[in-house]
């Protein structure tokens, strides 16, 4: 369970992480007066980029000299390790693995997309044995660094990067999102459910593919006529906010869906669900929210009362397995693919909505899960790993 991000910041004495000014910000100036200001700006960047840098084992863990000689590291995307979503989940996995192994680890947050490359290469210089890059957006930086450093192992979440030394940690999320779509269609009273994404990239659209197919499957077997808005599976086009910030675009997109009379909303993309929750509260209507990546009911209690369920992607498990495996010398480049079958995916409990969903829903979902695992129910997505 993920309960907040403060776990990683209680070591004031820990050495600062590998963040170099010249890596983060580069500009030249002839004006001396500017240099002072530049320094302020640069140190702010460093503060942002390295806020989470001094990561080490929790107090009480085995001292490093007794531990195996293994140094795992991680780079977040711009969402940061406190995104209550996949960066945070990846961090938890790494932290747990390092604690169990009794080794030091290093995790660096990227302030923006310009920091991906420099952050990865600074970890290379730091002498990391395994570098986990969190997210599709770091694919390019990972490809470059893994090609240049064939003796260092890499693992990338949510994307396939080719290389002897790169292990992709991927999830066939469409399966779990299918369950969410089924549950949404079962819950909906207005006959409309909606989804929208941050940016149109495969790890986002795979959720929307599964959601829409789950709704269709419910219509098929239950004879309902629930419409899923915000994503056109056949055309692969839909509603996106253009970023992962919980700002006004996400708010108005959610409002647009609510104006179309939806009563279940699944925003896909880190913290944009916060804007959606605000739109729901403003509407004065009873609208349920579906979380993604982690059980948002646990990670963000402020929206707990709105949550129908969450699509679980056990990134932490994937990262843990790969990290401990690599420490024992069992590193290979076969992709880890999380599915409903291997427990890499799942649907969170209904929590407060237990009494509001139909009594048979839980049993039906188990049946659907079994059908997907057995291959009887066809669930596809162009974004699935290996497609």
């Amino acid at each position, binding site marked *: 369970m993920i309960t*907040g*991000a403060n776990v990683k*910041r209680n070591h004031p004495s820990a050495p600062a992480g590998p963040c170099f000014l010249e890596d983060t910000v580069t*500009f030249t*100036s002839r*004006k001396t*007066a*500017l240099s002072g*200001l*530049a320094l*302020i*700006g640069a140190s*702010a*960047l*460093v*503060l*942002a980029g390295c*806020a*989470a840098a001094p990561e080490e084992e929790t107090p009480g863990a085995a001292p490093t000299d007794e531990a195996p000689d293994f140094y795992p590291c991680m780079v977040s995307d*711009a969402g*940061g*390790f*406190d995104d209550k979503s996949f960066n945070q989940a990846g961090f938890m996995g790494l932290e747990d693995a390092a604690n169990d192994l009794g080794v030091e680890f290093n995790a660096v*947050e990227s*302030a*923006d997309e310009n920091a991906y490359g420099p952050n990865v290469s600074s970890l290379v210089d730091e002498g990391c044995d395994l570098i986990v890059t969190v997210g599709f957006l770091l694919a390019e930086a990972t490809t470059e660094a893994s090609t240049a450093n064939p003796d260092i192992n890499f693992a990338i979440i949510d994307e396939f990067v080719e290389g002897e030394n790169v292990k992709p940690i991927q999830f066939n999320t469409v399966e779990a999102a299918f369950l969410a779509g089924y549950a949404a269609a079962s819950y909906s009273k207005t006959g409309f459910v*909606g989804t*929208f994404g941050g940016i*149109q990239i495969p790890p986002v659209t795979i959720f929307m593919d599964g959601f829409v197919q789950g709704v269709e499957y419910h219509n098929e077997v239950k004879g309902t006529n629930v419409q899923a*808005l*915000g994503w*056109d599976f056949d*055309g692969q*086009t*839909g*509603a*996106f*906010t*253009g*970023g992962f*910030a*919980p*700002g*006004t*675009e996400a*708010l*108005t*997109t959610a*409002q*647009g*869906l*609510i*104006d*179309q009379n939806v009563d279940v909303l699944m925003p896909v993309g880190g*913290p944009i669900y*916060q*804007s959606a929750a*605000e739109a729901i*509260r403003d509407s004065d209507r009873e609208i349920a929210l579906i979380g993604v990546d982690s059980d948002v009911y646990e990670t963000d209690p*402020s929206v707990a009362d709105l949550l129908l369920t969450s699509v679980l992607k056990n990134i932490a498990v994937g990262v843990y397995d790969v990290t401990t495996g690599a420490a024992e010398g069992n590193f290979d480049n076969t992709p880890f693919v999380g599915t409903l079958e291997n427990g890499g995916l799942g649907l969170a409990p209904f929590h407060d909505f237990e009494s509001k969903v139909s009594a048979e829903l839980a049993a039906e979902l188990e049946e659907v899960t079994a059908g997907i695992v057995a291959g009887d129910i066809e669930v596809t997505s162009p974004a699935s790993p290996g497609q």
Partner: protein
Amino acid sequence: MTAAPATTASAATTPGGASPIVVRSWKAPIAFAIFTVIAILLFFIVGRPDLDGGNPTTIYRLSEARDAIQLPPLTLGLAETTIVVVILMVAATIGAFLLARAAVRVPLWLTTIFAVLFLVGFLTWAAAGATVPMIGLLAGALTVSTPLIFGSLGGVISERVGVVNIAIEGQLLGGAFMAAMLGTLTGSPYVGLLGAMVAGALVSFVLAAFAIKYFVDQVIVGVVLNVLVLGLTSFLYSTVMVPNAETFNSPEKFERIAIPLLSEIPVLGPILFRQTVIVYLMYLAIFLVWFGLFKTRWGLRLRSVGEHPTAADTVGINVRATRFWNVLLAGAIVGGGGAFFTLAAVGSFGKDMTNGAGFIALAAVIFGRWDPIRATLAALLFGFATNLQSTLSIVGSPVPSEFMLMLPYVVTIVAVAGFVGVSRPPAASGKPYMKA
């Protein structure tokens, strides 16, 4: 959108002689023609093959359940609407060509009618077979526009007084952060709003100090300030706000206040007059900035310092002090706009939540030719285009979503290039004033 001086077909006298030069501008008619061709291509060549048979209709919902006066929804058939729209667009284009040949400037009303026609046709085409909630569409546009308008008002003041304000993004973000922080700590959104204004002014203070006192390049200071504020707020968000969200990041939001009578006006009432205090302050700010800049002594001094500081100095205006205080004022206005994010829209601070709004506000300043009213209109246009794309992508428009996300920027570029023409900044904007 306004026609620019460059597009004006005017008779001018050459400095040396008496023979008048007739300037014919073909910009507007050509733009009209291009849009007419686009409309014909979209409506009749591309059509809506995805909708099978018959004549699909688009329903415009004009009232919400909570409105007092209920208007029936407006239903437009695709075929007849697009035919009528295209005929009128062709007529307007021919009219514009005739006007241009006669060296008469294409009037603003014709441009406006043309734009509205195109929009109605496009909406009916793109949303065929679906419902367009007009109130939601326009109210959402205002939500997206509000921080942009505050940002552009601050930008206008700052640039009019001679200091280029690239730091709008930082001022908005700083304001949003401080509003969330103080709003939660004190439990009062009003204190939060005040804090946001102070935060914006503080960012401006650094800009003003470096630009006015130390003559540092204003653009560079602005860029660095944006990075500084982003870094600082992200750092504080991660270390302070996330672990203690209850104590630091759950401000009470401003309540929506419905203004009696005005909020009952069909369609526009609920959009404009069922809003939070921040939006009402925005209406006031737009008027005050316009009135102040062009009708008061303060505005005259401010503009003279931005246009010709040496002349202003000669007549006894303290150039540096005028610049300093007005840049601070600009920052306070932008910071107040930042409070909209956390105290009116989203209700909690998020990392980089302004998402580039400050840069769009900067574009609105230039697009609006350094005029508060025009900059406001530019910000509204951008907000409308943004929300239009989101509404259309929800109802399932035939345009791919990647292209739809470009729409606001395309609209802005077309508008700037096609209708604004030459825009002239205040002459001394960006130039530090050094007393000889």
